[in-house]
């Protein structure tokens, strides 16, 4: 079931986030520290996929005048490759279409797995912001129109 997260979901989302963070093999490309990420989950709008009451995947986003910007997303490692995140993205795409705005996201230039996934989902590279991350790496801005 896909739904918007509410305040009660915060502890569950913290756990999901922690599991995702723990599974990251290359911390350099994972630029969110836990505290910052949990703060984001509180202030952003978050769509969650709940399977039998367990939150297995989420996408957090913020709405600006120009776009819906995806700020964080992920799936519990043991629940990956089951289409949860893709289902959430399709839902977010519908929301973006209703608002007549494109989707934006940023990704670390060395995070090739994520880049490939976003490209598969129809995101296109539009900008390269150099020296964006503390490690001196660039962030790639990608966008997906409603078309």
């Amino acid at each position, binding site marked *: 079931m896909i739904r918007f997260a509410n305040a009660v979901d915060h*502890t*569950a989302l913290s*756990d*999901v986030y922690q599991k995702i963070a723990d599974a990251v093999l290359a911390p350099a490309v994972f630029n969110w520290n836990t505290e910052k990420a949990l703060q984001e989950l509180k202030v952003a709008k978050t769509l969650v996929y709940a*399977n*039998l*009451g*367990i*939150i297995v995947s989420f996408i957090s986003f913020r709405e600006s005048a120009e776009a819906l910007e995806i700020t964080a997303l992920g799936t*519990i490692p*043991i*629940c990956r490759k*089951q289409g949860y995140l893709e289902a959430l993205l399709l839902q977010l795409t519908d929301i973006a279409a209703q608002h007549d705005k494109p989707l934006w996201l940023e990704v670390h230039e060395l995070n090739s797995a994520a880049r490939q996934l976003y490209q598969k989902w129809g995101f296109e590279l539009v900008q390269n912001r150099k020296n964006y991350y503390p490690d001196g790496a660039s962030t790639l801005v990608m966008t997906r129109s409603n078309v």
Partner: protein
Amino acid sequence: MSYLKICILCLFFGASVWSQEKAIVLNQILFSESEQSWSTRDMNLFEKVMLILNKKNISPWSEGRNEDFLLSRLSHREALLFGVTPEKLKISEADRKKLSEYSTKEVDAELERISYVLMFVDLKENQLKQKDRFVIWMNHLKRKYQAKIKYAEPAA
């Protein structure tokens, strides 16, 4: 009736009652859910396998042995619906010998069940975080799978 006959009859009935009680104690039905019933024999296997796996319980929030066993059966059904296949737990041949009163098929089925349940309950517990929310979930499982409890439940 002679005194001897009465004595023999008493011995016969006494033995018969004793053997019935013994049979009930050996394999008493603890609960049923949907169309399955689970007995003390099943619980013994569950507890022996858990001991071999060095696991104290499925959840520290279970109210005693019976509820932990009930949780293992109800959450297994949920875990199957959840759609994630966990890595199957294994035990040594020496440990299998400790379970010789059970068939290989029974032991393997128990190991598989526990693999699913530990994965699923761990996820659930970490997201529930509080015992009162766990109790609500447990009650939901009992209703969903029509659990009919035949053992004495701990006082609320």
